[in-house]
């Protein structure tokens, strides 16, 4: 697999190109344009970019003001501040009136790296998923990021786009349709199914290879949309394979694993396991070291699937 550009650069470039074809797009940031890469849009369309300084709560409500006035604002900051600090503004000012605000929050999960636990959001999917009217999308590579940015505009209502800080291996193709709420099977398999989102998708594909080496046929499904979750796909795989494992760079509480578990509950079928951050805060370190530290590797996914399959 070929390594792509960083997910946030892919976001910034997609945003710039979206701006070229849609004059309703305005972009809001909170003194992190260089980090979130909204600077790419800002440099192309300086008069459609607004900085709100280090005041994320106000940025979210002012984004609501733009949406009330017919614009489609993309509001960006780090996930910890946008989904965390400004949670109640997102809930009451944006989601409650179902406004067309798109939150593209970067530096999600432990790929933040050295900045450590204060800046590593491991709860954002859980928070955003719990709010009515919100759509939650976690793109897995630069190609999907681009599609997700454009697709978000077609969603009538608020969208949360989870933007990783780092690069991701390219695992999707330009011509694959991207429909919010529709999971994509990246690899067929008959024994186990690996459901992954974001940076865990390439790791799930590697895990599938490890499993094949041991004679276990593993499917890999890209759950780019956590809400609405693709219930049809989950139930179909539940009746086709012996084990399902979810993989996410997020707390095991409230994210992809929880969303899948909610669908599986009451539906007998495959054994089920989750790979994610085990209800702990992040720590400082290099991103790859942190993926190992928190048990988010291809080996971790393969081991979990194998254990469930062989049980």
């Amino acid at each position, binding site marked *: 697999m070929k390594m792509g550009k960083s997910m946030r650069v892919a976001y910034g470039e997609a945003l710039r190109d979206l701006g070229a074809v849609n004059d309703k797009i305005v972009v809001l940031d909170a003194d992190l344009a260089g980090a979130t890469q909204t600077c790419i849009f800002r440099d192309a369309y300086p008069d459609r970019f607004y900085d709100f300084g280090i005041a994320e709560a*106000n940025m979210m409500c002012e984004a609501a*003001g733009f949406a009330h006035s017919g614009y489609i604002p993309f509001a960006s900051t780090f996930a910890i501040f946008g989904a965390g600090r400004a949670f109640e503004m997102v809930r009451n000012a944006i989601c409650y009136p179902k406004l067309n605000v798109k939150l593209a929050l970067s530096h999600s999960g432990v790929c933040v790296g050295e900045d450590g636990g204060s800046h590593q959001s491991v709860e954002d999917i859980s928070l955003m998923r719990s709010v009515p009217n919100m759509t939650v999308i976690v793109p897995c590579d630069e190609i999907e990021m681009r599609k997700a940015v454009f697709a978000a505009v077609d969603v009538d209502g608020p969208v949360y786009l989870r933007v990783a800080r780092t690069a991701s291996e390219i695992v999707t193709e330009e011509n694959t349709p991207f429909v919010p709420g529709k999971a994509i099977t990246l690899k067929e398999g008959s024994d186990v199914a690996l459901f992954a989102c974001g940076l865990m998708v390439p790791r799930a594909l590697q895990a599938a290879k490890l499993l094949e080496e041991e004679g276990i046929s593993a499917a890999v499904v890209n759950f780019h949309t956590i809400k609405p979750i693709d219930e049809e796909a989950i139930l179909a795989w539940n009746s086709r394979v012996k084990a399902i494992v979810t993989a996410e760079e997020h707390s095991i509480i409230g994210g992809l694993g929880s969303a899948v578990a909610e669908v599986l509950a009451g539906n007998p079928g495959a054994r089920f396991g989750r790979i994610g951050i085990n209800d702990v805060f992040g720590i400082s370190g290099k991103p790859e070291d942190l993926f190992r530290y928190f048990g988010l590797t291809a080996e971790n996914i393969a081991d979990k699937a194998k254990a469930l399959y062989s049980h």
Partner: protein
Amino acid sequence: MDYEKKALQIRQDVVRMLYRAQSGHPGSSLSCVEIVEALYYNVLRNIDPDNPKRPDRDRFVMSKGHGCPTQYAILADLGFFPREDLEDFRQVGSHLQGHPDCNKTPGIDCNVGSLGQGASVSAGMALAAKHAGADYKVYCLIGDGESQEGIVWEAAMSAAHYKLDNLIFLLDHNGLQIDGANDKVMSLGDICAKFEAFGWETVTIDGHDIQAVTNACLAPSSGKPRMINCLTVKGKGVSFMENNFGWHGKVMSEADYSAAAKELGI
């Protein structure tokens, strides 16, 4: 128009709604009657009950959303919805929510209720108007207790930064909040000086003087956002509610209602 008669009619509607709902905020609704009346009958341009979302209308955001019975009474009077709807305020199935919902009630520009957020959204609306080159103005009613929310000051800072001379805050300054006097709960200090330090122009008026509210709103702009410090009496118009923080959100008993109804000529 007989403004005093209109104010009395609004107060009658407010007290009836709140008694019938057996919930809501009498003190906060009654203190802002003249402010909201001045806005709707004198100040706001292009307000059209037949086209509530008319793009060129001036916006009004009642950031202190718990005072909404006053706004609902006026919207009904203007014909945005039937007067009978007021009877179901706060009940299941009513479009008149405990705090305003722009997707349910015609004439409501913004969901409000979580204090401070309306101030910030209204700044966003004013910035969007500037962005669009539109000439509508955004009026936002904030409370004094509400001004303890940090986001009010984040919004104030951004409004000055973006030179939003199309944004007007009206402060319903009755000096009381749920737990008591502002000065006891959390002092606001010299709130005009605070807004001025944030780059706003301010003016202090009698918030029960309709002409004063009207003039303060329509005065020529100096290029800055404006904060109109409206000195008001909480619970205004019902003697036993006046200046009594206990009536912020208290339910009226039958005896309370009879006494209030008598004073208001219901």
